[in-house]
């Protein structure tokens, strides 16, 4: 099962501690080497080139960032795992790194299953 994880955060106004960055790289490497992490990237702030294209009431509109949500989406990751719980475990490890290394950091990871071949097959006989 494939999962997309979107990390949203309210970051303290200080630069991220170097040991956090190191821990994130280590965990990422571990998850990649385990064959579970397929893809991940950090995202530029919505103030730096973020755009929203919207369709409401038949009207297309384009709005430049920054967006005003309390938390910003700051990275995404794509995991291939055997269960939802395994996805939760990887996400929990990722958040725990922040808890242990960057006081004041708050955020959440939204975990969503990606449709896969199993969703397109015939209904079970």
């Amino acid at each position, binding site marked *: 099962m494939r999962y997309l994880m979107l990390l949203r955060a309210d970051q303290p106004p200080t630069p991220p501690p170097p040991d956090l960055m190191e821990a994130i790289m280590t965990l990422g490497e571990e998850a*990649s080497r*385990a064959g579970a992490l397929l893809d991940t990237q950090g995202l530029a702030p919505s103030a730096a080139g973020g755009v929203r294209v919207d369709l409401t009431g038949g009207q297309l509109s384009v709005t430049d960032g920054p967006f005003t949500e309390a938390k910003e989406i700051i990275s995404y990751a794509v995991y*291939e795992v*055997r269960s939802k719980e395994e996805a939760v475990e990887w996400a929990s490890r990722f958040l725990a790194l922040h808890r242990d290394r960057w006081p004041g950091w708050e955020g959440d990871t939204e975990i969503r299953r990606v449709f896969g*071949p199993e969703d397109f097959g015939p209904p079970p006989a």
Partner: protein
Amino acid sequence: MTQPTHAAVEAVWRIESARLVAGLARLVGDVGTAEELAQDALVAALEQWPAEGVPANPGGWLMSTAKHRAVDQLRRRQNYQRKLEEVGRMLEQQPTGEPDLDDHVGDDLLRLVFISCHPVLPTEGRVALTLRLLGGLSTAEIARAFLVPEPTVGQRISRAKRTLRDRAVAFELPPPGELPARLASVLEVVYLIFNEGYAATAGADWTRPELCADALRLARLLQGLLPAQPEVHGLAALLEIQASRLPARTGPDGEPVLLPDQDRRRWDRLLIRRGLAALERVQALGGDFGPYALQAAIAATHARARASDDTDWARVAALYRVLIEVSPSPVAELNRAVAVGRANGPEAGLAIADALRDEPALRGYPHLPAVRGDLLARLGRTAEAAAEFERAAALTGNARERAVFLARADAAAG
């Protein structure tokens, strides 16, 4: 904080179990014992974590729990005095109970890979042990994946562990001279697991994507453990690219959809990208293309074509020629006939296919008459083409495939 469910504990287990078993096997020298100790630790985790929460370092917790069990067990057996001292010493060196195994993890995992795929084991034993020890799958999960009864898988695993013990297979890396053959055995096991998911030989479903995903995960694990081996990346590339076609490989009614007829917009671009990247690593390692890397290069050529007709068939044909040099196979030669038939016209393809008619390995192989039928039809030799498709239909064991062949026989005769 919410308390972890059994499923959550099992998820931690899947992440930690291979390293745990590998570390324990180095300690006790026997994979079977290591696996039993690891299972004991899992049972303890299932008892304690739901009440107490997952410890901060679950891998360390499982390891020290298993080690304490090991000591308990050995204490009860006087004849293992020497090992007890050994384990005791290891525990003294790590008084915190948080074993610092990082230096060994890669090597231990690699030993576990080679032992699980050891040539003294029958193929089904290798497959079951690999999924169990490296994939972290339970016996029940393996049984479900291979559509065999759970006790059968249990027996395969316990027999394999016993064989390793009886034959005194040491928990060691293969000596350099044996590495190529031993690596081939490892890659073959992963390839077999993938293929069982990709074109299931049993059951009602044509594919079982979850088993493909398990094989892919193993292939990626091997890439990290054996980064200097081109064929490891070759196998990973092949599986990533083949898996990318899974969403297009089954029709709405569960029928197989073969490569030329697939809706390529449904191919998984992420997996294709990963496959091409793995293939680039083969190149970066000096471009020593073995059979898996060559098959991956062929798959990549298909992956790069936006439509079947855009395929660089000359390149596919040339790659098959190299593949046959490296690893002769009548099936590869038949595939070359298809590619040459596309690149240079049906006559040229038919000449290659015709030469295979007396090949014993292809006797009873439905795709030989099917390929000939296709080439004959394109040459306008319709009666011969229809006869070939009927032969193909008679030879296949797959009902869905038979229907496809019969339809083509009708079309050729019509």
